[in-house]
């Protein structure tokens, strides 16, 4: 008797929720049932692969998808909106068409254009079904009232109409078309990298107007005080020496025997790729391993170069206790800077940042340790930081351009204004 009563009241509650959702979405009732488990689950997974929660959540707030996080762009900050199903301040009142147009075409319900901080340029590779699945999932979240002022760009970038020109220059609309010459894994990887994963948003260099430099696709780019490294198969700066398993393990756990994720990539792994299937991570690896890297071979600096001599001395004093005299570190604890391709990046922004400010590697269920490196910014001056970085970029068989004290000085002033 008690059981029956409990079921009845539970049933009533579920009914109330359902009618609320119907009220919200009835105007555009899609073909598929928006409450369908398969649909919602597919949407949840795609929302993870698309890393929606990253931008649409204020870190540490414990209120996912309610928006309010400022996204730094070279043109100013854009604040991510609320994408919970709240009818007034979220997307509850949006039609499916409106949602699809925003995600895949960068159009707001009023016809205005979104800034590409929202990676619609990548999400356009998804299908309408994919996007409506994400919508179905978002509709299952608790609606949260949270009004967000999205556009905080300075003049003239605050004129959204300018985006019409930008779209014409840089936005290629259209779903992903599989390449029949390639394996299903390669095609799945290409879809994930270029579509929901929007890897190029960080890893492809941008023009002055913020559009992709397609000739340098995924060859690394500087943003938000970090250098997102080359993730092509380039053997010096990219993933050439990584096996497909290394790449998949990195995306799942944040760590390999060589290196560890920190900064924005730590957030991506924590929120997105550590929750993806091994099959998808292997597919991403298959695709990235197929991308040719740059074909240049710079010469290392001579060991008797004064910066190399000074850098080696600083390295032995300050770095070798953890990273070892030979630069090999301890697997999955202290990165092997002798083998890390990131150390040889064209732009040393990440290296400078880590030395000046320290860094914490990502914690995942598989790798909970989350080792960190302390800041040396208070201890080493600009010339000393430059010397030690020049040394590690040209020691143990590596070769990369020297880092100058001016580079470090600029980074130091830039970082002074940034939160961790």
């Amino acid at each position, binding site marked *: 008797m008690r059981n029956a009563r409990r079921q009845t009241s539970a049933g009533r509650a579920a009914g109330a929720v359902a009618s609320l959702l119907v009220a919200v979405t009835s105007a555009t009732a899609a073909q598929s049932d928006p409450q369908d488990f398969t649909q919602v689950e597919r949407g949840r997974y795609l929302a993870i692969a698309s890393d929606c929660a990253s931008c649409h959540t204020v870190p540490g707030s414990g209120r996912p998808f309610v928006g309010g996080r400022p996204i730094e762009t070279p043109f100013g900050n854009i604040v991510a909106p609320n994408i919970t199903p709240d009818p007034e301040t979220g997307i509850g009142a949006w039609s499916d068409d409106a949602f699809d147009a925003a995600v895949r075409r960068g159009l707001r319900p009023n016809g205005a254009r979104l800034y590409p901080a929202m990676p619609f340029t990548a999400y356009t590779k998804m299908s309408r079904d994919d996007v409506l699945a994400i919508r179905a999932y978002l509709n299952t979240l608790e609606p949260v009232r949270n009004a967000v002022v999205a556009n905080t760009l300075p003049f003239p970038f605050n004129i959204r109409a300018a985006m019409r020109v930008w779209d014409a220059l840089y936005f290629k609309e259209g779903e992903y078309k599989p390449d029949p010459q390639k394996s299903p894994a390669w095609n799945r990887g290409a879809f994930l990298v270029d579509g929901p994963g929007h890897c190029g948003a960080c890893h492809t260099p941008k023009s002055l107007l913020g559009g992709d430099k397609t000739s340098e696709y995924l060859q690394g780019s500087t943003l938000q005080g970090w250098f997102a490294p080359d993730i092509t198969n380039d053997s010096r700066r990219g993933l050439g020496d990584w096996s497909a398993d290394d790449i998949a393990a990195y995306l799942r756990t944040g760590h390999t025997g060589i290196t560890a994720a920190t900064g924005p990539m730590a957030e991506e792994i924590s929120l997105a790729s550590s929750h993806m299937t091994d099959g998808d991570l292997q597919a991403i690896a298959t695709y990235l391993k197929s991308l040719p890297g740059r074909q240049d071979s710079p010469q290392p600096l001579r060991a008797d170069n004064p910066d190399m001599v000074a850098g080696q001395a600083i390295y032995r004093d300050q770095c070798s*206790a953890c990273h070892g005299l030979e630069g090999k570190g301890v697997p999955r604890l202290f990165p092997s800077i002798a083998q890390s391709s990131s150390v040889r990046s064209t732009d040393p922004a990440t290296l400078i940042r880590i030395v000046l400010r320290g860094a914490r590697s990502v914690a995942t269920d598989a790798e*909970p340790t989350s080792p960190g490196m302390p800041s040396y910014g208070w201890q080493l001056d600009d010339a000393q930081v430059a010397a030690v970085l020049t040394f590690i970029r040209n020691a143990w068989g590596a070769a990369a351009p020297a880092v100058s004290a001016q580079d470090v000085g600029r980074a130091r002033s830039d970082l002074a204004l940034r939160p961790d």
Partner: protein
Amino acid sequence: MARKLPKKDVVIVGLGWTGSIMAHELTDEGLDVIAIERGPWRDSPTDFPPSYMQDELRYRVRHELFLRPDQTTFTFRNKMDQTALPIRTWGAFMPPNGVGGGGVHWNAETFRFLPSDFVLRTHLTERYGAAFLPDDMTIQDWGLTYDDLEPHYDQFEYLCGTSGTAGNLKGQIQEGGNPFEGPRSRPYPTPAQKQPFSNTLFAKAARELGYKPFPQPSGNLSQAYTNPLGMRLGPCTYCGFCEWFGCGNYSKASPQTTLLPVLVRKSNFSARDNSEVTRINTDGSGKRATGVTFVDSSGEEWEQPADLVILSAFSLFNVQLLLLSKIGEPYDPVANKGVIGRNLTHQTISSVNGFFDNKKFNFNPFIASGAIGMCIDEFNGDNFDHGPHGFVGGGYVGQVQTGARPIESTLTPPGTPKWGAAWKNAVRDNYLSTVKPGTGVHGSFYAYRDVYCDLDPTYRDRFGRPLMRMTIDFHDNEVKQNAFLTDKFAEIIQAMGANKVAKQYRVAPYDVTQYQTTHVNGGAIVGADPKTSALNRYLQSWDVPNLFVLGASAFPQNAGYNPTGTVAALAFFAAAAIRNQYLKNPGRLVDA
């Protein structure tokens, strides 16, 4: 009026080694656990980074990682007829503070007690007769045995990755290890650390004198290690900044390096730092704990209700909180009644410094770790016949090279002036060629009727509550024991080839200003009889069955080893009892 928080399954008081272990075990059981820690949150890379952690002034001299006596302290006296005075700067021992507790600043010497240590009174009485023990010595059996704890010693060593050489594997004596140790079920998880020159020289001299030296078991690791929780530790770099310091190299086992990062990922674990528990609350009957009251850094008072209370602060604070919460009968040494405060003990430490010819010996004493040593166990516990010597107890002796930090490592041979050019020259000439054992003689401290804790009649804390009073002195038994061990140790230092040997015996009265160790024990001890013990063998309060009291406060008396291995094994043992017995049928686990 305290504001009441939502009830939890478990509240843990103090997030050091034992609190972290219990939190991990009980969250694994699915319980909703909150830990309340008096000090700040502390984490390896941000709180003790290798870029500035090696700062002797900041951490050793100015006590950065320890409790500030103005937050709370104890009063101290040697004898019951004296008036106790408050300790205003820490000396003989260092009460820890903050997340990780003593597990942050320890030397990581990871010993097990001897099987006979757990049945001490029975063992000594059988071997020497009851009349051999001093009348006022109140040593007791633990009510549990080495075999009970063996699986849990093993659990802790594998959590830490302890580096060592087994001396007794399942009853088979192993070459190179400690032949006196109890049987262990498997070898140490990592091999012993490499020994510096002075330690190998000590081992050679000891061997030539007929002893069996063994490497000190160390929580500063000889090689990289991944523990069963997936936590990764790195090899020790022999920087020589262990005791008093946190390790930012991930090479010293601590709650931070072995447990906490896993714990904080659990959704059924939460913690409050900078919050001091002021009382364990009980219901009207006084037989059931209802939770705790704590004060946050704003002075706000909160009540945290819980079904199960785990008291896992530093030993003395456990006793203090029991006395202030009026749980268990306070110990009265005159009537020899009551349990809370009974059998307070510490350690009996001394050292011998050896001065060598600096043209022949260079020990590079700065190549060091907190537990890098060669020790002998011939004079520990009851490993030797005490009959001719007129005392009981003992300890290990060893050359443990813990560091040659500049402020404290200015030893000069006896007879050197205390200042001026002659002193400076002597410091320079002897720095590299002096053997200055970090541990030396590590002797037991047995329990006595007049060594105990109670509430001070005069001095009060910032909440207006009585401070806890420590009454503690050395008895003849310990003084004799120390003289015997110090002489034996000095013989080995002499045999190493020292020109001069300086012995510093431990003598009465007990001096609260001279550092010995932080191994303060007892006051809420385990036992088989509720009349003479606060806790049953599972560390469960006899009086309040939903209260468990972890830590060295449970030791009925102290053995001649560092306590942490046993403290942690007891915590795992109690956790197993809670998981396997208590939760199925909450109540007393032992009938009395």
